């Protein structure tokens, strides 16, 4: 006699096979019969009228095409943020400092208290430090300089250890960020000089006030504090170090716009370097990819094997690219890097008028391309970068 569990498992398996088989047997898609992105989004947000929602649900239940769209869409939905329980909130806020203070007091009381050494006159700096930490043990008298009294050292060390521990992570983070900062600056300053940049072509077009603002956003990143773009926090630990630094007086004006564009590019680049960016060509078998943010590889068998291209004529972070044909690929990057290949393997650097960060490129062939900066400015060339217009 079969158990209930066995029958349930049988149903489970049969559903998996039979419904899964529906995915493999897709009918041809006819335009107009299926959900588009707008209706799917409206349905998902619950913004449709009840009759519309019912109709879409009915269609979704039986249409494998739209189910696949829904599945991809569902995978993009961000996880819901759940609020922290009350007990956790107050515990974290109050228990940590209270426990730290209590431990410090306990160690202070319990630590051994050796006999006071012969008195010594501390230096002015030592006096200042001691007055804040140990006023009751101040030594008043004599005149000759001597090593600091050893009496409070165990306590001071213990206390320092305890007091350091809760903020250790923060202190380490700040130290790390301070270390990273000059490195980042050095990278940026080294970048243009490290690679042979073709002479900047002449830029056609008139610069308006708004363009000036966007230009400032691209080219002069500033360091004003800003609480926005919270969504990007995980990706920009380095960028978050920026607001903690004092604002340099030289560039105070670019303000929030500059910072956000800068942060965008930093986050953008760091994400880019983490995973290879694949650039598909219209030919399904040919594609390129940016590896490690600075190297380019090509595949001629749909990504099965990858071959490094010839050494790039520019060093720096590459962000994205586009391939209008199987042999042509445009790649852009930070600090005005624009690369193009006409044979698929040898990239040449295209002159670009400004050392700004580029985040997007569209091209129709090896001569015509439009690139976009992080600040949203567009530049177009029709002669492979000899001239750029805006």
């Amino acid at each position, binding site marked *: 006699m079969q158990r209930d569990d*066995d029958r349930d498992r049988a149903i489970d*398996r049969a559903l998996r096979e039979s419904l899964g088989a529906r995915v*493999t047997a897709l009918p041809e898609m006819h335009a107009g019969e299926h959900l588009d*992105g707008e209706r*799917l989004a409206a349905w998902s947000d619950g913004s449709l009228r009840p009759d519309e929602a019912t109709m879409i*649900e009915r269609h979704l239940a039986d249409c494998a095409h739209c189910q696949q769209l829904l599945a991809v869409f569902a995978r993009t939905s961000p996880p819901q943020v759940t609020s922290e329980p009350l007990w956790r909130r107050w515990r974290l806020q109050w228990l940590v400092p209270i426990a730290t203070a209590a431990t410090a007091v306990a160690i202070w009381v319990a630590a051994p208290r050796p006999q006071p050494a012969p008195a010594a006159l501390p230096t002015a700096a030592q006096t200042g430090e001691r007055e804040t930490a140990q006023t009751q043990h101040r030594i008043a008298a004599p005149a000759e300089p001597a090593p600091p009294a050893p009496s409070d050292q165990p306590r001071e060390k213990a206390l320092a250890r305890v007091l350091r521990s809760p903020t250790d992570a923060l202190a380490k983070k700040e130290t790390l960020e301070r270390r990273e900062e000059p490195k980042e600056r050095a990278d940026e300053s080294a970048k243009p000089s490290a690679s042979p940049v073709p002479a900047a072509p002449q830029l056609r077009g008139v610069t308006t006030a708004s363009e000036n603002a966007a230009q400032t956003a691209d080219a002069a990143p500033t360091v004003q504090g800003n609480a926005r773009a919270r969504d990007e926090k995980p990706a920009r630990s380095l960028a978050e170090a920026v607001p903690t630094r004092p604002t340099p007086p030289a560039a105070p004006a670019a303000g929030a716009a500059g910072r956000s564009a800068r942060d965008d590019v930093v986050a953008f680049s760091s994400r880019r370097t983490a995973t290879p960016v694949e650039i598909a060509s219209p030919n399904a078998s040919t594609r390129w990819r940016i590896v490690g943010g600075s190297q380019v590889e090509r595949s001629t068998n749909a990504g099965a094997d990858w071959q490094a291209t010839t050494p790039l004529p520019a060093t720096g972070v590459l962000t994205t690219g586009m391939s209008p044909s199987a042999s042509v690929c445009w790649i852009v990057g930070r600090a005005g890097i624009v690369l193009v290949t006409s044979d698929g393997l040898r990239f040449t650097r295209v002159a670009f008028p400004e050392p700004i960060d580029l985040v997007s490129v569209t091209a129709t062939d090896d001569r015509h391309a439009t690139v976009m900066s992080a600040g949203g400015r567009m530049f177009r060339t029709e002669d492979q970068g000899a001239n750029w217009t805006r």
Partner: protein
Amino acid sequence: MASPPLDRALLARLHTKARADRWALPLESFGAALQESARRAFEKTPDRRQLEKYLDSLHLEDLALACACAEGSDAAWEHVIREHRPALYRAADAIDPTGGARDLADSLYAELFGLTERDGERRSHFRYFHGRSSLATWLRAVLAQRHVDRLRSRRRLDPLPDDEAAMAISAAVTTVEPARARYVAIMRGAIAAAVALLAPRDRLRLTCYYAQELTLAQIGRALGEHEATVSRHLTRTRRTIRDTVERDLAGRERLSAAEIAECFASVLDDPGSLDVADLLGSDPIGKELVQDRSRDKETSGAAGR
């Protein structure tokens, strides 16, 4: 449908509600976007009350933002860069963790800005946003649609399986025990009939779980239900199917209790798939779309199995 009339007082109120002055969006531009949205939503010209109710239900702030971006407002574009672009890239990474959907996000981003031109005029893809969902949801949906479209176009270029493989498959099918094949066929028919009797939402939940291999959490987010609710509904639906199948086998197929047990056992025993389509197993779309099921499925347990 002709554009419904929009009086100035209503337009001004919606303009204020949308905080469109943040982007210095002209009243006329916003009005045109509202009219276009209404034109697409109604098959017949709505009365004033219907129209007002519809317009009030729109995501007006996002619509104003999209309008302003399409009009070329720097402030609005800066807002999109700050608030929406990161989400767009996160969505691309969620679709393909290897970065394969990044170029789609890039091209969409470029189209939003309006890199393409028509009749000498810059055309921003924001013009296709009509405020019926939030802008963030719309961007995710458009990205998902492009990803699916691309997979379909790639699939068309893939070669068909060669003759040897097809012969091997047919041989595998014919060697399966005939009795089991009969029971499996009966079970398939009964299950298909039971699934067809379900309410559309139950059917959708089921296909999301079994065919698309979404996690409970993903299904919940897609259908606006809690993960636990999805699990509960799936359990109930499976139970319904089982009851229906048992009734069907006993009633319509006139099988004995022993034969019904054989039917269930035939599905449970796994000498290999009997489904030819499954044996062919060549669904690049399905396989590419079905990424790893995220951790939350494991944490959710057996989904009421």
